[in-house]
């Protein structure tokens, strides 16, 4: 397990929670996020952040703490985990209803 | 001084070549100076004044009541909106117009964007100088969009309640 960072945001048009992927796209799945371990990696996230904001693709960007485990990349903070999954009180809403995220239970 | 900036005229105003001055002495030698409000008392203490007309620039914390004694000698008041979210300038304008009877030109400057123009017009401004990046066509279009107002203010628009008394079956 290693600690690092990922870039998250909301899409301007829909408000969807998204994460920057290694390919430079945006995915709704946190476990598909580009994982930045070094300062250089974080600089790449920051550059992508500035570019996407300038292009009016995303808003409310934030580089957040994440961990990389055997099952994949996942945000560290409770708040970000809720964003990644959906509200804990409504299992039918959010990514938890669309994808099998059970590997990240209690992450 | 506003050569590149687009301005929206809510009312017809006499055009003049205003020049911003930082000090009273500088202003005294300028035909159409615009002086910061806190330089005003120095300006009026000078003997050698060659200005044709005087403009004053307010900051949001200027007490407009302090201008009362000199108001009839002021032709232009610029109300500065350093950030468009700072709404003090609207009250300054209404107090100047409605309490103090200021008849000169009232001009909104600073972070003046599109969606504040309709409020500025109603608070008694004659002119709004748009921030550099604002599209004047969008500004004109947005300004025309509103026809209904609910409360009296410093402009001469009748609020809805007054119109209702005259227009029973008003159709749109």
């Amino acid at each position, binding site marked *: 397990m290693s600690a690092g960072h990922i870039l998250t945001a*909301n899409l*301007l*048009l*829909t*408000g*969807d*929670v998204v994460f920057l992927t290694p390919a430079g796209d945006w995915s709704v799945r946190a476990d598909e996020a580009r994982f930045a371990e070094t300062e250089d990696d974080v600089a790449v996230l920051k550059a992508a952040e500035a570019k996407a904001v300038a292009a*009016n693709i995303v*808003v*409310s960007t934030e580089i957040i703490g994440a961990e990389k485990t055997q099952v994949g990349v996942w945000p560290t*903070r*409770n*708040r970000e985990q*809720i*964003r990644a999954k*959906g*509200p*804990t*009180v*409504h299992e*039918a*809403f959010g990514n938890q209803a669309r994808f099998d995220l059970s590997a990240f239970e209690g992450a | 001084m506003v050569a590149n900036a687009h301005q929206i005229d809510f009312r017809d105003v006499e055009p003049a070549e205003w020049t911003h001055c930082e000090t009273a002495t500088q202003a005294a030698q300028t035909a159409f100076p615009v002086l910061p409000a806190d330089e005003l008392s120095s300006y009026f203490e000078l003997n050698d004044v060659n200005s044709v007309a005087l403009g004053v620039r307010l900051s*949001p914390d200027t007490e407009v009541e302090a201008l009362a004694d000199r108001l009839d000698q002021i032709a232009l008041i610029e109300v500065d909106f350093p950030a468009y*979210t*700072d*709404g*003090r300038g*609207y*009250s300054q304008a*209404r*107090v100047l117009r*409605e*309490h103090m009877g200021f008849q000169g030109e009232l001009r909104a400057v600073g972070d003046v*964007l*599109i*969606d*504040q123009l*309709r*409020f*500025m*017009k*109603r*608070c008694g401004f004659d002119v709004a100088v748009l921030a550099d990046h604002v599209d004047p066509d*969008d500004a004109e*279009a*947005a300004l025309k*969009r*509103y*026809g*209904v*107002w*609910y*409360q*009296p203010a410093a402009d001469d628009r009748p609020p*809805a*309640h007054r*119109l*209702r008394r005259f227009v029973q079956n*008003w159709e*749109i």
Partner: protein
Amino acid sequence: MYQYDNFDKQAVRERAADFRDQVERRIAGKLSEDEFKPLRLQNGLYLQLHAYMLRVAIPYGLLSAKQMRKLAHIARTYDKDYGHFTTRQNIQYNWIKLVDAPDILDELASVEMHAIQTSGNCIRNISSAQFAGVAADEVEDPRPWCELIRQWSTFHPEFAFLPRKFKIAVNASPADRVGVKLHDIGITITRNAAGERRFEVYAGGGQGRTPMIGKLMRDDIEAHHLLSYLEAILRVYNRYGRRDNKYKARIKILVHETGEDKFREEVDAEWRKIEGGPVDADIAEFGRIADYFTAPAYDTEAQVDAHKARAAMDPAFAAWVRHNTLAHKVPGYKAVTISLKPHDGIAGDATSDQMDAVADLSENFGFGEIRVTHAQNLVLPDVRDADLPALYDALFAQGLGTANQGLLTDMIVCPGLDYCALANARSIPVSQKIAKRFDDMDRLQDIGEVKLKISGCINACGHHHAGHIGILGVDRKGTENYQILLGGSAEEDTSLAKILGRGFDEDGTVDAIETIIDVYKAQRQDGENFLATYRRIGAEPFKEAVYGG
């Protein structure tokens, strides 16, 4: 209820068209997010944790059946089949797309609704008593006054960019059902010794991170001076309210730092310049507005206590009548509270189907009118006693028959970290665990009236300062932690709750609440509710029981 004329209809259509243009300019990149954000907020559109959230205004909590059906339609079409009723009597949708928001505003405009000034640093929705117009104890119907203030405050050109948000509430009975002293401006309509109408105006109250009780500014405002007096307060606030620190920008800080008396003098000085001027001429509008609020055609032969036979043989129904209905000013009628607090649900949430059902019931058992309460429930204001059994059965079938109004599980709960971008802790799960622990109607009835209010951060949307028992969620080193407060009230005996001691995790909180209730039950004297016992015995016995000697 008030109905739009062509001026009002044009105003909301213009606003919807304007917002469509703003959204288009944002998408085209002509507005930056920083420039757009205050504009979308003034139309109730937030960016929350998972998506955009749209807050729709329900002026003073009053809805027609047709409007409720539209709200259901919006939930079904643009959201996930849910709406959430709020403590300011509005509704919000949690899963809105920016690109849909202009269409939603058009839909709302078609039923005389909007999202104008439901957020942003401007004058917000005017709130009022959920039993306005039907409560036996009110001196008059406050709603026409709310409507007058609503119109005055809508698109007010001077007050669109105040230092901070501004909330006004209007009450018109001795019982305070709006939290008069916990608003930026709270108004109580009264009668003076000569029987003449006067307005008591309080300013500088509020909750949030620095809770304060509002100060009485004047108790002698006459009807034809109401708007000028409000305008004077707002102007002083707009000019002198702090803008250097967002957390000190509410009017309560200005009143506090200026001093109550000096602030009153400043307002009076401003008021003298405008009283009797153009803004007060708007009082001419009052008669036209008041005509919309004349009493409906009540059944003069409505039989009093026609529900008693069912109550005698059905204890659950009897309990529901006891807790969820209020005496009506017309004999043979009751005002019914529909609980949006099922023990396994989310406070204030209603599904599209439930909203439609309530709309139907408001027509079948009333005059097609619905109220939203600040406690996140709904009210059918005009139900005949004879119709109570059928209404109860219909509500029960929809999961809306919980008989807990005013009881421990009728909690006010903010959305918390499950939805809110500002929250530090989740509010809903702890509320659900408490409801589960106390999921026994006999026990709840024995405990009696307790106002439990839960916020997921210090902004206090869940009114924890004003709860008999308040719970405040905080983030303690990355873990959710809950502080317990006791002794608050938002009613005529307004008080601010005080923190009991160190906080707990979720389960510890539920245990502590149970301990606190046990102390109350052991200590209460003849008919005292929780708050009365707390005020008599103080915090110590509760502290001792919760934290040990």
